[in-house]
Every structure is written in C-alpha cells, then in structure tokens.
C-alpha cells in the first residue's frame, strides 16, 4: 500500500497536542523554559520551540529567534524522561525489608522528538530490556510523534548513522514542517487514527515531491562521516593502537559531559545512604564512562588511563553496541560535540580513525 500523506498547517500540530491531552496524556516535547530549551510538558502549540533556531558547534550552542528557522534539540533528550538522572531504587527502614521505590507511570506522549532521539529510544529499549525502571517509564509512553528534520544542524550526522533526518519506524505519527505547511504520515494504526481525527486532506503531489527533495538534501547534509562499515572496521583495527588513542584523546579532560548528554548512554552508578534512625536508601544515577571510577574496583583499575576510557566510549558507540543489540549506539545527534566543553568532535575523531586505518 502506498504511503498516505496528509497536509495541514502548524495549527494542526496544536490540534494534535489537544487530542493527545484530551486522552489524558502528558505531552512531552522540547520546549523553552525562559530562554532555555528543555524537555518537558507542553500544553499548546505556543509551548513548542517553533520560531527558534539552534546554532550548534563544538562547545557552542546559541538559540536564535528566527521565524523561518528550524529547532533541533538541546542537551535534554527523551532520556531525561525515560531513564532519569537520579532514581530511587528502594528504601529499607524495618531491618532489611526493602520497599521498592515507585515509578511515575502516568501515561504520556512524546511529541515532536527528532528522528535521532527516536532511534536512541530504540537503542535504550534494547539495552535496558530487562530494566524494570526503564520499562515502567517506557510503557507509559502511549504515543510517539516525530518531527523530521528538514534542516540538519552543523553537528548532526544522523545521515551517516542511518538514524535520520527522516524517521523510519517505531513512531505513531511523523511530520515535517515544509515552507509553511506540515506534512503528516502515520507509522502505526493508532497513528493513522490520530491523523483521521485531525480531519486533514491528502497532501498534494507537489508537496510530497518537495518533501522527498528536501529530505534527500537533508540526508546529504547530515552524512559527513565515512560509511558506517568502514568506521566499524577501522575502529576494530585501531583498538590496540595506544598511540593513536592517546593522541585523539589528548584534549579530553574526562568530564563526562558527552556521556551525560548522549541520548543512548545508559550507565548508572549506585548510591547508598543511611541515617541514624535505621533507614537506608539506595539510588542510582547516571554515570559516565569517561569518569575516573569507570572500570575501577577495590584495589585496582581496569581502565586506569583516560585514553582507555575515551576509547571505550567510542568503541562502545560504534562497535560494541552493534554486537550487543544489533544497532549502532551512536544515533548521530551531535550532542556530545556541542556540549563537550573542550569542543572535541566525535565525528572528526571517527573520520580520523578511518584515515588512520587506511593511511
């Protein structure tokens, strides 16, 4: 069956938010909080970051007011909602009888998330498959509405990782904002029913053609890495080359910003606390593999030097995830480039690995 496209204008997005809210869902999206883009609940079209553009570069993020601009994302990704930074695990007050923490499972819809972040959710789904806490939050997601990227940013490389700028699956509704129009398509039966409620007309053929052209151009723009197969091969070959990894990580200071903002980094560390009335609490919090303690055990360290941890970060993203879950762990969102205070560009590092290998 050929794909059906529907057309509307931005008010249709507002209508979609209303429909979702009408079903009792909290609608979560990238939104502005003061002058800062965050990820949180939106109530209407006004709350979306439409009309702003983010100018991203290594260690640099600027939000500019631009009616024709296109907003991509900030350091917040849906990971904040699905796999929160700090989470209670249990509390024990009466001896060792531990009482599990409760997880908020009020139903929600993810709205307007970018294809890279959608792909990141698929990565988390697989790697955290047996994590009760993640699953509880994840199963509270009733709908996923994706905004496709007609204009990739300067740090984006989803075209190379095959995770954008168009969405390829795992969503209910996808839309693209094109020259004042919004082009919708459904990714699921439920999504189709949502679109039917919007009562939109079929999209005219020339709009669909324009969409194909724009997305093709966007894909070109976001494909600055060497082919993924070559990247994986070169990374595998490079693993034992200490000199190379020392060199590419020479500017890294191990701050782990990259891990924190990465929408697929899932690692956590446990924190235990106690008080003198016999209560104890166990929590977990995000923990980055660029931090010193990653690989440390009592009395020794399996990755004592920073270049080893940096190498692990890159290899995990491109090589090891692939073997763990059959998908690359990097979805090309470029966040680790923008939010690295040293401005280290993962895309560039990966390209260097490839040229190092062939040189």
């Amino acid at each position, binding site marked *: 069956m050929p794909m059906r496209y529907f057309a509307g204008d931005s008010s249709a997005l507002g209508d979609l938010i209303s429909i979702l809210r009408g079903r009792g869902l909290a609608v979560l999206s990238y939104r502005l909080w003061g002058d800062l883009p965050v990820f949180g609940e939106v109530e209407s079209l006004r709350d979306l970051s439409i009309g702003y553009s983010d100018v991203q570069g290594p260690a640099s993020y600027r939000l500019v007011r631009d009616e024709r601009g296109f907003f991509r994302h900030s350091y917040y990704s849906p990971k904040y909602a699905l796999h929160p930074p700090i989470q209670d*695990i*249990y509390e*024990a007050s009466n*001896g*060792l*009888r*531990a009482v*599990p*923490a*409760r*997880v908020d*499972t009020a139903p929600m819809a993810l709205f307007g998330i970018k294809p890279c972040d959608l792909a990141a959710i698929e990565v988390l789904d697989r790697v*955290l498959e*047996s*994590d*009760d*806490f*993640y699953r*509880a939050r994840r199963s509270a997601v009733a709908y996923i509405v994706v905004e496709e990227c007609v204009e990739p940013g300067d740090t984006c490389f989803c075209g190379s990782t095959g995770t954008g700028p168009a969405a390829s699956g795992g969503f209910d509704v996808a839309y693209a904002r094109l020259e004042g129009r919004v082009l919708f398509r459904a990714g699921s039966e439920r999504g189709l029913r949502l679109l039917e409620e919007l009562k939109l007309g079929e999209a005219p053929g020339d709009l669909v053609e324009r969409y194909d052209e724009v997305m093709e151009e966007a894909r070109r723009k976001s494909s600055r890495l060497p082919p993924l197969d070559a990247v994986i091969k070169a990374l595998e070959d490079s*693993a*034992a080359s*200490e000199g190379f990894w020392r060199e590419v990580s020479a500017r890294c200071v191990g701050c782990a910003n990259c891990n924190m903002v990465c929408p697929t980094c*899932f*690692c*956590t*560390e*446990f924190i*235990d*606390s*106690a008080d003198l009335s016999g209560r*104890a*609490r*166990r929590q*977990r919090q995000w*923990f980055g*593999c660029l931090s010193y*303690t*990653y*690989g*440390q*055990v*009592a*009395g020794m360290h*399996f*990755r*004592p*030097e920073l*270049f*080893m941890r940096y*190498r*692990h970060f890159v*290899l*995990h993203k491109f*090589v*090891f*995830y*692939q*073997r*763990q879950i059959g998908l690359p762990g990097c979805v090309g969102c470029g966040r680790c480039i923008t939010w690295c205070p040293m401005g280290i560009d993962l895309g560039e590092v990966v390209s260097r690995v490839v040229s190092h290998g062939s040189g």
Partner: protein
Amino acid sequence: MALGRLLPKVGRVVKVVDEAPLVRTYHVEVEEFPEPSPGQFNVLYAKGMGEVVISVSNYVAGGKSVMEHTVRAIGSVTNYIYAKIGAGDQLGIRGPYGKGWPIREFEGYDVLIVGGGIGLAPLRPLIKCVSEGRDRYGRFTLLYGARRPVDMLYKYEHEEYGRIPDSTVLFSIDAPHPSWRGYVGFVTDLIDKVKLEPANTVAFVCGPEVMMKVASDKLLKRGLKADRVFLSLERRCRCGVGICGSCQLGHYFVCKDGPVFSYQDVKPYLAVRGL
C-alpha cells in the same frame, strides 16, 4: 508500579569462617532462593553501605538453603562486612546471577582446575561437583597457589581434595616460607608439571587476570583448545543483571554474559591493555 528486580531478599548469616588474613567465608541462610550453579555469583547488600558481588563458593540445599560467600576486606562494603557482620546478623542477598562453569557439558572429560589466591572461591563448587559425581569425569587435577601459606582458602578441605580418586592436587606459594614443603613459585609453573591429555581435557581457571592469561596461554601451548579453557573474570560489577553498564568488557557485560567465559571468546579483548 512496583519494581522488584534489584530488591534483595533477607539473608541471615549462620556461620563465619576465618580463611586468611582479611578473608572470611560467610554462610548465609535464605528462604526460597534458586539453586546457584557452580561459578554463579550473588549480590550481598549491607544495609546503608552498599552491595558487593561475591561468587557462591558452596551451596547446601534445604528448606532454607545456605550459601557460602568468601569475602576479602578490600573495599568500603567488604570492610564493613568484615568488621561488622557476624553470625546471627542479616545481609541482603539477591541472585544467583551470571553464567557459571559449563561443567555439565564436559562429562567424560578430564578436569583441570587452576586457582590463584581468592580465585579458588568460584572454583570450589566445581571441586565438589567432580568429587560427588566422580564417575562422570576423567582425571581430576587441581593446581592452587597463593602468596603465602596463610593466604590459602579452605585449608580445612585440602586433605579431602587430595583424597579424590584418580586425582593430582598440587599447591604452590609465591615465596619460600619456613612452614612450607610444597612448590615455591607461580601456580602457573605447575601446569608444566602435570600430565595432560589435551584432546580430552577441560580447564577452569580463576585468579588475578595476569595469572589467568599466563595459565591460558600455557594450556594452549600444551595443546588445549581455547574453547576448552574457561576463565572467571572480575570487573566493576554493580547491578549484576546487565543494566548498569559498569562491567563491560568489549561487547560483553561480564555480569550477564559471564563471569565465566571461554578463553576463545575473550582472548582478543584481554590482549588489549585497558580495553
């Protein structure tokens, strides 16, 4: 929604055995606990202090099963357990986790065990398994080394090990000691001293990682295949169930895909320092 995966059961310490300086074995009794297979581990929780991953060194079935955990006081949680937990005290416990030794797959084979220091703990259930099902396995060889005589685990059982029929049991210590009449040197030296039928032998190795690498390479030189040499690896293990990401070694989660691996599977990773 209630979330139980990481919740410990309440265990009661019924006995504590001094093994070596700073090393004790905690016998923990717990109700309705799945039977661990040799080489699997449990996660012990000291209230308010944290968890620690400890291999099960012995299992006694019963209405309330009892599992033995040999703990070395080296980090904050193990120091706490060592200093504060005695018979009658409670410890949280969850498990058993991980893939243990594939001993059942190797019935009919000669069994070689190489242990170093506290690395004997996860190997101990194997010794029991072979000695209790003696007719199911061929020759049994146990090589065990420690730094000093006093550092050896399960000294009270060593004589029993020697009485296993059709077996060779050799011990070593790293440096000469007045009370010691056995071999002095690395436990891996002993590999050269025993008779092996490589085509029909499976080896199980646990100890410091360097020692395991040396042992495995020696065994390969003696003709064993890399997929018949098994190691139990240590990493920074936190959750025990493959969700916290701490214990990764290459693409493996050591807690979930291991801790026991064939040398074949981990050799490329272990060969790269700090991977």
